[in-house]
């Protein structure tokens, strides 16, 4: 298991919640958010989007896939203690920088040089190279989105079925909250259509279009004696890859 995948329900956290209502707590955080979002809007994966984007016609030198999965994989692959050390957008900055260097878009040396220069002169101007066609594609993506829905739903389970959450090997990235592994829940709803995930999580099971379910869990089964008295149900939205029929050994169990 990986700690950052098993955050839900973690015990011993007596700290008060940081009820910070700001979206950004440092000005620089806005810039990395903007860079990430622009890369999403220029991602080569948009060629296959139902949004019908003419990605090949956009005059950007970016020619890589950049999706939420790519961003999340960077954060989730971190040393778990480091994951909790860094603030949200610090993880974005680290992951995006690492990706751009590893993909050869920028070299570590030029990045270090430029960073050193901005340390000396934080407000030194950025290059004044406008390119409206790039900006227009990014905004077009923001308005149009990129639905992962692909084809009609092909559900293996029915509403009311009891399902057992599988226990696939820990991957660098997952959409399975760790505390659900091995637990039984009841299918509350089947979403219309199948849904792909634009990033293969390998043995974890995501990538190809699959049905998605809303599954209802009883807190007493999830948390046992640590459940809050009288608490209501917990609902999770789970890809079919994470579910197996109940009353059998969970499929894909990595521990048994």
């Amino acid at each position, binding site marked *: 298991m990986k700690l950052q995948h098993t*955050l839900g*329900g973690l015990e011993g956290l007596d700290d008060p919640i940081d009820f910070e209502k700001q979206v950004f707590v440092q000005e620089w955080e806005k810039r990395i958010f*903007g860079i990430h979002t622009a890369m999403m809007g220029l991602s080569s994966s948009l060629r296959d989007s139902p949004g019908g984007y003419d990605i090949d016609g956009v005059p*950007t030198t970016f020619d890589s896939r950049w999706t939420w999965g790519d961003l999340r994989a960077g954060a989730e692959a971190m*040393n778990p203690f480091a994951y909790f050390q860094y603030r949200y957008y610090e993880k974005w900055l680290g992951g995006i920088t690492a990706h751009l260097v590893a993909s050869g878009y920028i070299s570590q040396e030029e990045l270090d040089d430029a960073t050193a220069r901005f340390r000396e002169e*934080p407000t030194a101007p950025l290059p004044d*190279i406008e390119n409206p066609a790039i900006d227009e594609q*990014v905004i077009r993506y923001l308005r149009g989105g990129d639905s992962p829905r692909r084809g009609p739903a092909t559900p293996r389970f029915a509403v009311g079925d009891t399902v057992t959450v599988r226990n696939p090997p820990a991957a660098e990235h997952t959409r399975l909250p760790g505390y659900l592994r091995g637990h039984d829940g009841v299918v509350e709803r089947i979403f219309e259509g199948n849904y792909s995930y634009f990033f293969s999580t390998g043995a974890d099971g995501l990538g190809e279009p699959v049905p998605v379910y809303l599954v209802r869990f009883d807190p007493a089964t999830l948390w046992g004696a640590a459940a809050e008295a009288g*608490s209501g149900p917990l609902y999770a939205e789970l890809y079919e890859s994470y579910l197996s029929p109940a009353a059998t050994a969970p499929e894909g169990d990595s521990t048994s």
Partner: protein
Amino acid sequence: MTSHFEYPSDREAASAAQVRALEKLLIEKGIIAAGTVDKVLGYFESEMTPLNGKKIVARAWSDAEFAQRLVSDTPAAIAELDLPIGMAGAEGEHLAAVANEPGVHNVVICTLCSCFPWPVLGLPPYWYKDPVFRARAAREPRAVLTELGVDLADDTEIRVWDVSGHSRWFVVPQRPAGTDGMSEAELAELVTTESMMGVALVETPARS
């Protein structure tokens, strides 16, 4: 081990310089342009803001049939309203709503990351991403809500939605007492981002 928890004293200045270096290089290399980041930020400052969510909730409070449709087919209901283009855009491709009602209170969380309905509420505030919030809200939602100032009756059922699949969820809070006769615009002003994720109630407006 303790080294993991040491922060350099120039932490923010270092990040600020690094992100500016990154933006400079991306512009020079033709990946993005000089105005791209500002255009993205402008989109979220002017169009995709919590104002959209406030209007959606105010309509639901004013029109019971709309409120029904908002839960049963959220995208179609939202498309009825005069909101900015892009409500089904990035992080709004598959919107879903749950409604609070007498005896039922909903809280939406994401224990894996920060899944958030951008077109409805804009970008997620920091509390939503706080590891302590994400950890505790999954298992002890009532204690968390009490800590955040939401006092619910003991017999109110709290439903937790830890939703990180394809949908982006939000909560339709309950209309507060003392708001009879208020216009949708007046009602919209009462609604907060926090109430639309279930960590706040909408308060009865103070008499002026």
